[in-house]
C-alpha cells in the first residue's frame, strides 16, 4: 500500500516537513561533532559538515518527493496557487462564480426533475423486468378484463393492476381528501416491496367485501407521520374511507410511491373493495370503464416477445367473457388486435405525459444559459490571462514548461467550475422544488421524489468538468502562446496582442448570438402565454367560485339525485353571501370532458350529419349562463319547465351553430345523439363560445343539455358568485348544504384558480424562459462591457494621441460605439440563424403563435441591441474622457 502511505504523508505536510528537517539536522550535527572531536572550532565544524553534505534543501525536496504522491502533490500546489490568485481579484471571481452557479444550478435542477420524472427506474425490485399490458390499443384496461387476465394470464412472473382514486378519510362533514390507489392482490408482492411497519396487502385481502379480517388498507409513510405522528399502535386502527371502515394493516416504505411517477398515493386499498368505496357508482364490473393499468413482471431471463406471445392465449377467454347481450359487432370492436407488452422500468406517469414535453423543451434553454455563462467566464479569464502575460513570459524564461502553464490555468478553471457547481447545487435544490411546486395543483398534487443522489451529483460534477474545459481552453491556449522573449518587455506587451482581441471578440459575438436565441424563445413563450390569458374565455372567471359536491352517498336512486341537485341549488342560492348560483355537470377547465362523436341533425340529409366530429357536452341548470356571464345570442335559457318529462331541449354554442346550423335559424332545429334512444333535442337557444376543457384548445362545438333532463351523476358542481369576500361565503354554503343533507361532501375552489391551473405548462415555459432570457441578456451585457472596457484601457495611448491631435471626444466615443455595433450586428446574425434552426422544434408548444412571429423577433432583437448599446456606452464615455497627458505619460 505504498500509495496509501504516500497519501497519508501528503495529508500531514507539516509533520512530514518537520521530520525531514529533524533527520537531516541530526546528520549535520553528528558530522559536526566528529569534526570538533578532531579539533576543529564549532564554526569550522559546522561549515565542514555543510560542505560535505551538499544542498540540504535539495536533499529535503527529493526525499519529500519520495514520500508523497507526486502527481497529487503538484495538483494541490497548483490548487493552492489558483485559490490565492482567485482570492486576489474577488470581483472577477465572484462574477464568474455567480454566473457559473446559476448556469450549473439551472441545469442540475432540470436534470434532477427530468431524472425523477422520466429516467430513473422505479425504486422496486428489478424494475427492468416490469412490463405494462396494453389491450385493444389502450393503456388502460377495465375491471372485468383485469379479472380475466389475473385468472388466466400465462407467460408472466406475476401480474398486478391498480387504479387511482381520490378518497375522503375524514367524516363527511369534515372531508379530507387524499390520493389513493386501488391495487390488486399481488401488487406489492410482484413489485417486491417490504413493509415499513405491519404487513402489505396480499391476495387474501383482494376479495369483494374485504379479506378474512375485514377490509384492509395500507397507508404511506407520509400519511403515517402526518396523521398518526408515526405511532407504532397505528397498525390495527380503523381508517374511514368514504364512510366505510377499513383496518390499517401496514405502512409502505417512504421511498415507495407505486408505479405512477408523480403521484404519491397516501392509501392503498384492495382493488376488489372498490364497490365498498364507490358504492352504487362502482365501475369495477363495467367493461367500458377503462380505469386500471395492468402490469406484469417478465420471468427471469425471459424476453418481452416470448411473454407477449404466451399472453395471447388469454384472448379467447377474454372474448368469451364479454357480456352475452353484446352483438358480434360490439365484441369485435371491443377486443381489437393482440395483447401488447411495453417495457416499463420507470412505470407510467401522467406527469411525464403532460409536462414531459415542456420540461424537455426547457433543456436547451438552460444549456444555453450555461453556455453563455461559460463564455463570460472565458472572457474574464482571458482578460486576466492577458494582464498576466508578463508573468507567463517570465516563468517560461525561468524554465517552466508550457504544459506546466496550461496545467496551472486549467487547475484555476477547474477550481472555479467546482466552486460554482457547489454553489449551484444549493441553488438547484431550491429551484427543482420550486419547479415541481409550480406544477402541483389542488386537484392533482404532485408527489415527485427529488433527491440529491449520486446520479445528480455525478451530473453536476461532470457538468463542472465540461464547463471548466470549455471556458478554460481559450485562456490556456492564449497563455501557452506567450514567448519567453516577452519577459524582456517591461510590460509584457508584444506585437501579437491582437490575437487576444480576436478571441475575445469572437466569444462576445457568440454570447450575443446565444442570448438572442434565449430572448426570442422567452419572447415566444411569453407572448403565447399572455395571449392565452388575455383572451376572453367566454365567461367571467375572476368573480366565481366552483363548489363540487358528491351526493352519491346521500341519495338512493338517480331520480332522487336530480331532486337533490335542486334542493342543494336552492340552499346555496338562499345563503345571504351568495349573489347568484347555478349547477352544472362540468365546469370550465375542470380537467375532464364529456364528449360524443355521434350527433345527428334531424331532418337533414345523411351527408350533413355530425358523426365523427367530436362534440362536447355539458348539462347545466337554468341561470348558468347568466351566472357565468356568457351572453345568450339567440333564443332562451333553460327554464323550470324543461323538466325531466318535458320535451327535451338543448342550447348550443356559436361554433356549433355556425358549423352545422348556418342554413336556417338555429333555434328550433332538432338534433339527436346517436346512442340515445330517447328522441330528439330541440335547440332553444344559442350562447357565445366559451372555453370548455383547456384555454389552449380551440373552442369546440358544444351542446348544453338541461340538467333536469340529463342522466344524473353522483358528482355535481355549482358555480357561485359571492356578494362579499369568498371566505365567509364558503362557511355559509357549507352550513346550508349540511342542513339539506349531512352526507353531501363539498370541495370548493375558485374558477380563476381552476382556469390558471389549466395554463400551468404555458405559465411554466413563459416564466422559466423569461427568467433565463433576462439572465442571458445580463450575462451578455456584462461580457460586452468587460471586453469593451478592456479594449478602451488598452487603447488609452492611442486615444490620448488622437485627443492631443485635436480629435473631438464625441468622435472617440463614436469609435468605441462603432466597435460595439459591429460586434452586436454579427452576434445578432449568428443568433438569428441559430434561432431559426431551433424554434421550429418548440412550435407545438406555442398556442396560436407561429414560431417565426415577426413582432416577437423584432422586440427580442431590439431589446438585445439596447442592452448591448447600454453595456458599450460606459466604456465609450470613458474613452472620450481620456486625459491625453496622463495616458501618454503612463506608457
Amino acid at each position, binding site marked *: 500500500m*505504498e500509495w496509501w*502511505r*504516500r497519501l497519508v504523508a501528503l495529508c500531514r505536510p507539516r509533520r512530514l516537513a518537520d*521530520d*525531514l528537517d*529533524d*533527520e*537531516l539536522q*541530526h*546528520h549535520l*550535527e*553528528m*558530522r559536526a*561533532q566528529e569534526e570538533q572531536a578532531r579539533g576543529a572550532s564549532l564554526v569550522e565544524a559546522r561549515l565542514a559538515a555543510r560542505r*560535505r*553534505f*551538499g*544542498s*540540504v534543501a*535539495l*536533499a*529535503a525536496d*527529493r*526525499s*519529500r*518527493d*519520495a*514520500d508523497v504522491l507526486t502527481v497529487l502533490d503538484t495538483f494541490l500546489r497548483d490548487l493552492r496557487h489558483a485559490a490565492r490568485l482567485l482570492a486576489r481579484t474577488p470581483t472577477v471571481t465572484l462574477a464568474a462564480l455567480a454566473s457559473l452557479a446559476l448556469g450549473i444550478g439551472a441545469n442540475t435542477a432540470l436534470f434532477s426533475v427530468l431524472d425523477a420524472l422520466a429516467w430513473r427506474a422505479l425504486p422496486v425490485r428489478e424494475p427492468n423486468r416490469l412490463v405494462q399490458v396494453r389491450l385493444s390499443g389502450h393503456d388502460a384496461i377495465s375491471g372485468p378484463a383485469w379479472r380475466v387476465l389475473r385468472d388466466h394470464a400465462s407467460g408472466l412472473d406475476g401480474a398486478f393492476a391498480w387504479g387511482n382514486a381520490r378518497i375522503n378519510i375524514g367524516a363527511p362533514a369534515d372531508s379530507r381528501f387524499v390520493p389513493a390507489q386501488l391495487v390488486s392482490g399481488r401488487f406489492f408482492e410482484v413489485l417486491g416491496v417490504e413493509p415499513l411497519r405491519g404487513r402489505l396487502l396480499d391476495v387474501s385481502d383482494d376479495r369483494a367485501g374485504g379479506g378474512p379480517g375485514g377490509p384492509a388498507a395500507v397507508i404511506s409513510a407520509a400519511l403515517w407521520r402526518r396523521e398518526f405522528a408515526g405511532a407504532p399502535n397505528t397498525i390495527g386502527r380503523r381508517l374511514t374511507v368514504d364512510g366505510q371502515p377499513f383496518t390499517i394493516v401496514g405502512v409502505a416504505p417512504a421511498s415507495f410511491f407505486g408505479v405512477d411517477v408523480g403521484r404519491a398515493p397516501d392509501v392503498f386499498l384492495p382493488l376488489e373493495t372498490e364497490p365498498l368505496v364507490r358504492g352504487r357508482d362502482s365501475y369495477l364490473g363495467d367493461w367500458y370503464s377503462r380505469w386500471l393499468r395492468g402490469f406484469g413482471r417478465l420471468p427471469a431471463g425471459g424476453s418481452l416477445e416470448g411473454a407477449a406471445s404466451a399472453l395471447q392465449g388469454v384472448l379467447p377467454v377474454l372474448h368469451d367473457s364479454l357480456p352475452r347481450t353484446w352483438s358480434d359487432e360490439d365484441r369485435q370492436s371491443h377486443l381489437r388486435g393482440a395483447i401488447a407488452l411495453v417495457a416499463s422500468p420507470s412505470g407510467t406517469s401522467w406527469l411525464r405525459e403532460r409536462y414531459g414535453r415542456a420540461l424537455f423543451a426547457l433543456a436547451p434553454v438552460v444549456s444555453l444559459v450555461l453556455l453563455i455563462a461559460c463564455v463570460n467566464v472565458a472572457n474574464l479569464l482571458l482578460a486576466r490571462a492577458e494582464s498576466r502575460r508578463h508573468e507567463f513570459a517570465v516563468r517560461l524564461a525561468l524554465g517552466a514548461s508550457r504544459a506546466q502553464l496550461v496545467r496551472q490555468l486549467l487547475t484555476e478553471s477547474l477550481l472555479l467550475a467546482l466552486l460554482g457547481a457547489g454553489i449551484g447545487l444549493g441553488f438547484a435544490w431550491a429551484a427543482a422544488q420550486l419547479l415541481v411546486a409550480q406544477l402541483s395543483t389542488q386537484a392533482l398534487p404532485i408527489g415527485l421524489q427529488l433527491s440529491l443522489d449520486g446520479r445528480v451529483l455525478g451530473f453536476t460534477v461532470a457538468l463542472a468538468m465540461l464547463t471548466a474545459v470549455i471556458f478554460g481552453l481559450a485562456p490556456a491556449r492564449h497563455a501557452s502562446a506567450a514567448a519567453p522573449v516577452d519577459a524582456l518587455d517591461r510590460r509584457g506587451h508584444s506585437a501579437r496582442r491582437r490575437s487576444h482581441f480576436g478571441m475575445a471578440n469572437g466569444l462576445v459575438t457568440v454570447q450575443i448570438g446565444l442570448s438572442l436565441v434565449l430572448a426570442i424563445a422567452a419572447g415566444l413563450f411569453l407572448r403565447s402565454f399572455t395571449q392565452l390569458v388575455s383572451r376572453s374565455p367566454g365567461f367571467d372567471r375572476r368573480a366565481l367560485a366552483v363548489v363540487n359536491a358528491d351526493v352519491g352517498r346521500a341519495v338512493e336512486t338517480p331520480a332522487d339525485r336530480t331532486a337533490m341537485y335542486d334542493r342543494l341549488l336552492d340552499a346555496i342560492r338562499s345563503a345571504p353571501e351568495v349573489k347568484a348560483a347555478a349547477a352544472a355537470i362540468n365546469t370550465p377547465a375542470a380537467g375532464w370532458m364529456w364528449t360524443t362523436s355521434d350527433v345527428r341533425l334531424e331532418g337533414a340529409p345523411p351527408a350533413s350529419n355530425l358523426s365523427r366530429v367530436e362534440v362536447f357536452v355539458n348539462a347545466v341548470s337554468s341561470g348558468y349562463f347568466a351566472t357565468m356571464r356568457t351572453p345568450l345570442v339567440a333564443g332562451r335559457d333553460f327554464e323550470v319547465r324543461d323538466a325531466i318529462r318535458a320535451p327535451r331541449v338543448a342550447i348550443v354554442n356559436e361554433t356549433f351553430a355556425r358549423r352545422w346550423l348556418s342554413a336556417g335559424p338555429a333555434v328550433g332545429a332538432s338534433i339527436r345523439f346517436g346512442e340515445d334512444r330517447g328522441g330528439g333535442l330541440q335547440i332553444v337557444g344559442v350562447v357565445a363560445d366559451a372555453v370548455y376543457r383547456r384555454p389552449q384548445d380551440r373552442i369546440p362545438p358544444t351542446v348544453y343539455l338541461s340538467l333536469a333532463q340529463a342522466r344524473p351523476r353522483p358528482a355535481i358542481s355549482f358555480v357561485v358568485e359571492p356578494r362579499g369576500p369568498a371566505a365567509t361565503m364558503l362557511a355559509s354554503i357549507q352550513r346550508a348544504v349540511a342542513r339539506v343533507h349531512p352526507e353531501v361532501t363539498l370541495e370548493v375552489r375558485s374558477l380563476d384558480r381552476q382556469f390558471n391551473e389549466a395554463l400551468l405548462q404555458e405559465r411554466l415555459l413563459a416564466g422559466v424562459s423569461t427568467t433565463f432570457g433576462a439572465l442571458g441578456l445580463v450575462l451578455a451585457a456584462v461580457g460586452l462591457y468587460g471586453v469593451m472596457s478592456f479594449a478602451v484601457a488598452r487603447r488609452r495611448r492611442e486615444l490620448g494621441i488622437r485627443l492631443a491631435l485635436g480629435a473631438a471626444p464625441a468622435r472617440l466615443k463614436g469609435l468605441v460605439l462603432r466597435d460595439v455595433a459591429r460586434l452586436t450586428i454579427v452576434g445578432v446574425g449568428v443568433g438569428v440563424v441559430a434561432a431559426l434552426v431551433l424554434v421550429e422544434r418548440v412550435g407545438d408548444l406555442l398556442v396560436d403563435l407561429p414560431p417565426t412571429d415577426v413582432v416577437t423577433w423584432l422586440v427580442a432583437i431590439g431589446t438585445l441591441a439596447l442592452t448591448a448599446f447600454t453595456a458599450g456606452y460606459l466604456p465609450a464615455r470613458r474613452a472620450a474622457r481620456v486625459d491625453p497627458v496622463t495616458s501618454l505619460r503612463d506608457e
Partner: protein
Amino acid sequence: MAPHRNEHLQGTLALLVLRTLAQRGPLHGYGIVSHIDAASGELLRVEEGSLYPALHRMTQAGWLKAEWRLSENNRRARFYSITPRGRERLAEEEERWSRVVKGLSRMLRFA
C-alpha cells in the same frame, strides 16, 4: 588514492545501504555513512545529499523500515532497518554485482 565518489558506482548505493543494514542492524543515516566509510577503508565515499532521498525511496518500496529512536547523543533520530523484502533484494543485488565484477575482471585479464 582519493576517496571514490559514488557517481562512478551508479546503482551501488542501494547495495551498500542494504549490505550495511543487513550486517549491522538498525542504523541512522549518519551511522550508515560512517559504516561505509570505515568498512571500505575510506575508499568509497557516499554522497550524503543523495543518501536521504535514496533511504526514503527504499523505505517506500518496502525494503527498509524506518522508526524514530534516541541516538547515541540523546537526540531523536530516524533509524532504518532491513525488511525481509530488503534481504531478497540484497541477494539479487549481490548476485548482479558479483557477475559484473567477474565479467570486468575477466575483461581486464584477457583484454
